């Protein structure tokens, strides 16, 4: 198990390196510069001297290879650079936003899990029932609904019509402010998890060992608890892991819509203003987050099903 764990952790390093290089190359070729973005809205006239001063300060007038060398050297020392917009270390900006992103991701996942797994189970145990049909229609709708639109619907219903919750913002960090964005973000993993759970449970229910258990006279409740739940768990854990890993990336739209101060909205702002060090740093952190969770899932998976280690 130790070797397996080490191997999986070491695999993260080349992935991060490749991603870092890709991000550098992509943002070196896309048109638009930080200095140009300062007057992009036409609210002030361009100032060539300021543009020259900024390009010099940020080293943007240096050849690509030289910038690349600086980037790699800094990265090797875990230095994500300095933001063009704020002139603060990128790591500080990410730290400022990480807690809000984590809150949102965890709340969305908890909401998704609490609702989806029981629903998926019940739907699978009663295939073809009204509940099953309704759950699956709901799941497909949840998967196909654009998050932006869903968020607006949530705001409209729970804030404007029912007046139960605030429609936007972080407030003073209260739970009430978290509910709407978390539920909106949680709908996609909820739908996916409900479908996965149902499929996983149905799969197990049709397996030979379940028939054997039944024929030995084991009660329905015991079969579900001892055999179905445990075997379906492998699939659920994998899906949860993958979904949780990608939640921070998915939160970009939600964070912008609800004025939620996470790294998703930081990324959007930084792309728009071509604040390349922050874009690179934020994407790297999101990728790293995904890889770490993925690795953790693999390890849990291996613990549940020892055959995985052999593969």
């Amino acid at each position: 198990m130790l070797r397996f764990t080490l191997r999986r952790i070491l695999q993260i390093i080349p992935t991060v390196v490749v991603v870092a290089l890709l991000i550098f190359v992509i943002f070196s070729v896309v048109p638009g510069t930080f200095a140009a973005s300062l007057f992009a809205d036409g609210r002030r006239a361009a100032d060539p001297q300021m543009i020259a001063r900024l390009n010099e300060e940020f080293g943007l007038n240096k050849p690509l290879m030289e910038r690349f060398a600086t980037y790699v050297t800094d990265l090797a020392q875990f230095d994500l650079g300095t933001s063009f917009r704020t002139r603060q270390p990128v790591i500080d900006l990410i730290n400022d936003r990480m807690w809000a992103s984590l809150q949102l991701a965890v709340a969305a996942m908890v909401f998704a899990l609490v609702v989806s797994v029981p629903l998926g189970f019940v739907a699978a145990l009663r295939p073809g029932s009204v509940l099953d049909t309704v759950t699956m229609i709901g799941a497909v709708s949840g998967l196909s609904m654009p998050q932006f639109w869903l968020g607006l619907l949530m705001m409209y219903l729970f804030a404007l019509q029912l007046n139960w919750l605030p429609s936007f913002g972080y407030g003073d960090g209260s739970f009430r402010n978290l509910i709407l964005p978390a539920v909106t973000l949680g709908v996609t993993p909820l739908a996916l998890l409900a479908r996965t759970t149902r499929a996983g449970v149905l799969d197990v229910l049709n397996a030979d060992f379940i028939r054997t258990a039944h024929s030995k006279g084991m009660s329905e409740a015991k079969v579900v608890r001892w055999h179905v739940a445990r075997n379906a768990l492998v699939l659920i854990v994998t899906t949860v892991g993958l979904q949780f890993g990608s939640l921070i990336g998915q939160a970009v739209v939600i964070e912008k819509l609800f004025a939620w101060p996470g790294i998703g909205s930081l990324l959007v702002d930084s792309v728009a203003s071509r604040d390349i060090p922050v874009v690179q740093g934020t994407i790297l952190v999101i990728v790293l987050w995904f890889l770490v969770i993925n690795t953790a899932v693999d390890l849990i998976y291996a613990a549940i099903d020892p055959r995985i280690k052999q593969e």
Partner: protein
Amino acid sequence: MLKRLTLAAMLSLGVAAGALAAGERHGGTLVFTAPYGSSFATLDVQSSPNTQEEFITQAIHRALYSWDSNRNKPVLELATSEEVSEDGMVHTYHLRKNAVFHNGKPLTADDIIYSYKRIANPENAFPGASFIAVIKGAEDYIAGKADEISGLKKIDDHTLEITYTGTINPGFPLMQNTTVIYPSNVEDESTFGKTPVGLGAFVFKEHVPGSQVVVEKFGKYYEEGKPYLDRINIVLMAEDAARDVAFRNREIDVSILGPTQYQAYQGEEGLKGHLLEVAEVYTRNIGFNPAFEPLKDKRVRQAINHAINSPLIIERLVKNKAYPASGWLPISSPAFDKDKAPYAYDPEKAKALLAEAGYADGFEFEVTASPNESWGVPIVEAILPMLKKVGITVKPKPVESSTLGEAVTTNNFQAFIWSNLSGPDPLNALRCYYSKTPQSACNYTSYANPDFDKLYEAAKQERDPAKQNDLLRQANNLVQDDAPVWFFNYNKAVMAYQPWVHGLVPNATELAVQPYDEIWIDETAPASRH
């Protein structure tokens, strides 16, 4: 007619009297929106040219001058009076004696000298350096050739002499958010970015990056009896639709409206009575590149202006949230020529002009455009059939907004559509058509007309504002005749506000930026604001 006028005057007096009788009220919280997209980049506003940061600036900081929205001109802010020398170059400022920074330091001439040097410091590369460049010796300082800005001279703690490079109105450059005054006694300048200290009516309290900035009433603010509010939450609300829900839900007190919302709000009881409109100082236009052969010909550019039915686009697409443009200088500019008619929609005349220029069979050109709904790809799509009618084929070239500026300043376009600052200072606005202004600055259409240059240079020397405006009016009319751009519209900015909010002003420079120290809320505000 006279009766009607008298009645109108009496009614407006009645309204004014009513407003006075109502009386300002102290206390409460205002939830103000910062509606322009991104998060606050930094709280060190001297370093940031973003409009978003102006919302913080207005609360926390003060500059030597400020914009008076009611008089539509810059006025002294940190000085109680100024004396101007015979030649108009040397201004002596008598600074307020009761102005105190939030850290307790009283304002002195040293703070202004310190701030202007910080802004112009070549190592900082701050955007306000170009505004400070109007001070004598600043160019050398910015270039690193001098240790001091020679035009800045402290007479005593409360008297400052500034020598300018010309007979300009220093109010325009020195009222900017990037030229505000910081205290000179803070040892670590990096703290300005996280815990700003200013002279404004409100003290910085909290910043939740990506969400909001909270400020609280400053007890030692120099304007007696102000501010009225105890607290302001300046919240980031980038999405129109989200802002709409929050405004209707009474969670925010003001909202800037886009064309669709403007139309909707006008038709709804309870909303239509609380809209504030102003002709802002931006001109939406399609700039033509004279390096592209057909657009070199003035007749072709005039033909395009005649071929497009601007009022129709403004009515249908922009939902009347704009004023048709009759030239470069907008309605709120002191040099606006109200007698100058816009180009008439006349396709036949357009065809005749094209034929005269040798393009009877038309031609094709490309318009670089961002996705902006009011001055981007949707507008280019609307003009396609109109220009097709006179034989011109237009191809939109969609780009992201930060790419647009780069394409234009590097001469990488045939035509572009943009919304550009065209006021409030007409001299500065028309600088963008002066032949000596490079394309990479703001002469995006590489405009060059010796007659214009003469008028502009004369206006630059003129000290009488009326005469100066007259010269600039003539220069503006030359630009209109030469049509280096398609004159589309002047932005009509619209703000919706809750009925309990008072003291908002029609700020033509940027409606969303409001003088917070003038704003107060009445007792009808919901409990969350008390």
